[in-house]
């Protein structure tokens, strides 16, 4: 039962292994806090859409499943969007269009179609949580690396906490801006994917 949960985190990590949902991953992983916010939004949407899809899987007609998935997903996304705007406006501004874009995030549609539609509710929720946490972990690690190298801080919150000054003043003066620019995102994700493959290969060898 819990295999489903852990598979989503490590073996089938959506970002680092399946390489899906890369667009938001690259775009919002410029800081650890943004990444956490995005991750939380995805976990929420993923878990609840899995729950709904799985619960109603017997009544959803096959021919209509995709439109219905989209409606379900977009409903939860809109909820997240409103709530974020109301209670975390700074984060909402930073994540920008990528929160509404969760609707078309292939992780969520993929899990709904590939897993929740075929499995019982309990498993579907665990799968949603697992994949969501897998996504969050990946994007959080990326956000951490990029923020520390690119800004010299960690966990800075827009309009709030300045962040832990991890690498000292010299670094704050001359941070590696490259890392928070898009190419830096590609570089970091390439490293993470490569590392993942390397360890996977070592473990199975």
């Amino acid at each position, binding site marked *: 039962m819990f295999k489903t949960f852990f598979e989503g985190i490590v073996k089938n990590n959506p970002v680092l292994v399946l390489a899906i949902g890369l667009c938001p991953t690259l775009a919002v992983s*410029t800081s650890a806090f943004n990444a956490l916010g995005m991750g939380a939004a995805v976990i929420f949407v993923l878990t609840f859409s899995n729950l709904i899809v799985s619960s109603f899987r017997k*009544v*959803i*007609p096959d*021919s*209509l499943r995709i*439109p*219905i998935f989209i*409606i*379900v997903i*977009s*409903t939860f996304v*809109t*909820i997240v969007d*409103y*709530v974020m*705007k*109301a*209670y975390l*406006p*700074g984060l909402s*501004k*930073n994540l920008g269009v990528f929160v509404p874009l969760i609707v078309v995030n292939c992780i969520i549609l993929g899990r709904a179609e590939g897993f929740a539609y075929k499995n019982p509710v309990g498993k579907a929720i665990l799968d949603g949580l697992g994949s969501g946490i897998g996504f969050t972990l990946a994007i959080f690690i990326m956000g951490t690396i990029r923020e520390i190298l*690119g*800004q010299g801080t960690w966990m800075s919150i*827009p309009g709030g906490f300045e962040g832990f000054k991890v690498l000292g003043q010299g670094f704050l003066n001359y*941070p590696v*801006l490259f890392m*928070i*620019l898009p190419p830096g995102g590609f570089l970091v994700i390439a490293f993470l994917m490569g590392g993942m493959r390397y360890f996977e290969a070592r473990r199975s060898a």
Partner: protein
Amino acid sequence: MKDILKPTFVLLITAMVASALLAVVYEKTSPEIEKRAKEKLLDNLKTVFPVEGAEYKPIIKDTLWCVEKDGKRLGIIFVNGMRGYASVIKVIVGVDTTGKIVGVHIPKEGLSETPGLGMKVTEPWFMEQFKGKREEEVKLKKDGGTLDAITAATISSRAATNAVRSGMEKYKKYLKEEEKSENEWYHKHLSEFFPDAEIEECGNNFWVAVKDNETLGSIYLSYGEGYGGKFGVLVAVKDGKIKDIYIQSPDEGFPETQEFGCKVREHTYLKKFIGISPDEAGKIDDVTGATITSEAVKKAVVSGYKRVGGE
């Protein structure tokens, strides 16, 4: 038929449930969102024009506000944008009625300039340097102005400064209006010079007193630059000679120091002007201890007279 109806029905139900759910969420969150937005806006307005107890009245929605306190206009705040390096740089600027910048704020949100470069326009030191600048000074040093540009981000710095300057130009007329109404102090004095006459405005801070189709005299308003700032002088002229003279009082915005500058407002000094031609005002002795201010008064009288064409 059933093939069409059933899916339609299912889809309809789904959509309705979803809409209902969203409606509830919207109902709950929208006041909060609006409240946040308002707070944020007020926050910004307060940063650029911080006056205790001031009111910010919108003139053009989301673009222009006037700052009022106790019914008196203190200045305006405007929002203006200019294409920067990678995005439009939005500036929020407070300008007081004399045309000086009170504060500039460049919000980080929605700005996508290069991090560490163009993004630095949002750093306090950059926004600070606008304070107290007049329109013509709002230029980068490179372009002959007074402001420092951000190293290696000339385009963003220039866009931000240009946004401030072009905004000031665009909304100048709102300040001009203010100048008039703000300087209302002289209106009540106009009638004091020619008690029975009707005062007709001829524009250009020049009035003519008329009684029974007969011109009794004229009044002009002129400004002098004293030790502490600008002050106004009203001069009534009759038959080419100064009939009376009035200098703005401290309540009306006279900027000079109480102990020295204010001496020029004393009757003993002003008396010296009466009866002479405004041309000859320069000959009058200065008030001891208030040379700059007295010189300013004399200059104002002479220049004002010249301006209105010597009657």
